[in-house]
């Protein structure tokens, strides 16, 4: 007698890995759970601590602050799940605005032409990052630090060379400005709250990114290359293509963000954007993305951006002594991240 065939007795010896998980347990193991709890805590805290935080107008302001970070935090989170990160994301936003403005102005073209050229440039920068990373196999820290410095220099140097000053000229009187502004920087007042169009862009990006991550083959590739690139390559995942596309995703969102900047203020200062890349990464980390890759979610990054928006503006609503602004911000961020990690650990322990 050989014991090759197990007795087929109505599921009694079913593989425990195939057991249906309870909905509660499914919920508890979601990466964004910790950040959602953290966001709720921050919200409740400021609802009590800050007068006027709960007014509709204030919530509109908080959402705007969150959306401008969130638009970039979503692709940065995807990139982190894919095991890489991008230090050039902050200045790339400024590059996007500068290219769009200067191209339209210098060519005396319809501003939409500048908008399209700017998209090509940001995608090309993403392509460059991805190409350099996958070809040279240098760490993304080095590659994107190089890109960050080069872009910072180009932003300043080219703007000065072309415009003669360090900020761009106004393009508000040019053709196509009104329609471009409607797409990238319009707003609507609903129930006393002024809602900016960036909130729609943000929600749209969250939806698309979540769908890509959870419902497409490309989403599986992202988790695979972030978890273990060699193993992923061994089972036929196109690692290079996946990572390059992720960098181009960052470029795409930097374009959206940069066009918003341009069309809401119409003049761009070339030195802006430095330091924002860290804010995007922080938002993704608060949202449950692991710095080591392979784990995280787009919704989590969005909630991370929301926590950032609520904290930075909540401090203003609470009228705390502004000298301590950065301290409070740092403490709130640490607390939220710790809470996030704690909830995740509890969820894993009870499962």
């Amino acid at each position: 007698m050989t014991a090759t065939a197990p007795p087929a007795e109505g599921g009694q010896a079913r593989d425990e890995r195939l057991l249906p998980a309870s909905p509660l347990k499914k919920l508890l193991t979601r990466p964004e759970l910790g950040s959602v709890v953290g966001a709720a805590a921050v919200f409740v805290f400021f609802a009590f601590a800050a007068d006027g935080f709960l007014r509709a107008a204030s919530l509109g302001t908080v959402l705007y602050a969150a959306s401008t970070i969130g638009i970039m935090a979503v692709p940065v989170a995807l990139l982190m799940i894919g095991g890489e990160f991008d230090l050039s994301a902050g200045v790339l936003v400024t590059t996007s605005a500068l290219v769009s403005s200067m191209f339209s102005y210098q060519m005396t073209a319809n501003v939409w032409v500048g908008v399209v050229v700017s998209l090509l440039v940001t995608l090309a920068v993403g392509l460059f990052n991805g190409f350099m990373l996958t070809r040279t196999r240098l760490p993304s820290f080095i590659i994107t630090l190089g890109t960050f410095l080069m872009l910072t220099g180009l932003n300043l140097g080219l703007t000065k060379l072309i415009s003669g000053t360090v900020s761009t000229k106004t393009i508000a009187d040019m053709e196509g400005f009104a329609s471009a502004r409607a797409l990238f920087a319009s707003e609507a007042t609903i129930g006393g709250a002024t809602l900016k169009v960036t909130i729609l862009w943000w929600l749209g990006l969250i939806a698309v990114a979540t769908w890509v991550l959870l419902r497409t083959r490309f989403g599986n590739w992202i988790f695979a290359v972030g978890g273990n690139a060699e193993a992923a390559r061994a089972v036929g995942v196109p690692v290079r293509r996946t990572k390059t596309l992720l960098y181009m995703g960052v470029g795409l969102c930097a374009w959206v963000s940069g066009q918003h900047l341009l069309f809401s203020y119409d003049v761009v200062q070339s030195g802006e954007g430095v330091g924002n890349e860290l804010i995007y990464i922080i938002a993704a980390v608060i949202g449950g993305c692991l710095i080591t890759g392979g784990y995280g979610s787009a919704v989590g990054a969005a909630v991370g951006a929301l926590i950032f928006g609520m904290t930075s503006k909540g401090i203003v609503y609470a009228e705390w002594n502004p000298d301590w602004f950065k301290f409070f911000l740092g403490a709130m961020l640490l607390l939220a991240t710790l809470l996030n990690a704690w909830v995740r650990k509890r969820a894993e322990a009870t499962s």
Partner: protein
Amino acid sequence: MATVRTGVRAVAAVLAVALGVTLTACSATGGKRAEDARKAAAEAASGRANVTTPRWTFAMVTHSGDGDTFWDIVQKGARQAAAKDNINFLYAHSDEGQQQAQLVDSYVDKKVDGLIVTLAKPDALKASVARAVAAGIPVITVNSGSAQSKAYGALTHIGQDETVAGQAVGDELDKRGRKKALCVLHEQGNVGHEQRCAGVRETFDGTLQNLYVDGTNMPDVQASIEAKLQTDPAIDAVVTLGAPFADAAAQARRTAGSKAEIDTFDLNAKVAAGLNNGTLGFAVDQQPYLQGYEAVDLLWLYRYNADVLGGGRPVLTGPQIITKKDAAALAAYTERGTR
């Protein structure tokens, strides 16, 4: 691998199409063509040397960060004076005190004929300025450091006293009947910014609150001011400390539904336009062009004729209060980046 290459080719193709589109999709309004048309009417403004004095080399070292519009204007003034005075002009900057000092040291090593320095971080620069003076190089301080300038051995100081400028703003707010104002600081820890707000507080009869914002992140600046205006509807004036932030404040006022008047330090094309159409109340200008121009010109005068201005006291370039009635006349100068 193949995909990446296809990507490159696709990007190149789309770029080519876009360039083609550009040639056809021209804007009939605004843009460079309009600017060129305006320029054609004016004369070519580049200076020509008017003196036959030897070609001296003057160097300027400021505490400017990268891409700062204000320092761009200072530099323009300095270069204009240098062209006129037959001066070889060198410029370097760093917002780190220690690095700024090293830049000064390297110009002293180069044995320049004159040195222009800002003293935003006076302690860091004390030794370097002393070295220059010991080497017989005349030093003029500009912009910040009026208190230390003389003690450090500089010939004179050209700039705006930040406290005095703040006081002028406080007086103007009183004149306009404001009761509760907000002072928006875009660099936390900048001594000059603190002095400005403190100056406003001294002369302003109403109350003044400080608000710190992240100057490198414009949407954050706007959202923070918006939040503050929503929290306290009694605020009837917002004072920003740099020209680019006045526009963000104006947008914040609109979304917050506030009636506050927006006033600002410094000037640029947008501020001039804002003053003109009534979006902004007033601007207080310290005339950065003058700071650069006068510094080079005074060094030349000292070299040529041992002239010194100020009699041991700072030569003030501001505060000049600019309102709607002055704005129209300044628009063209802000456009070309010298006001």
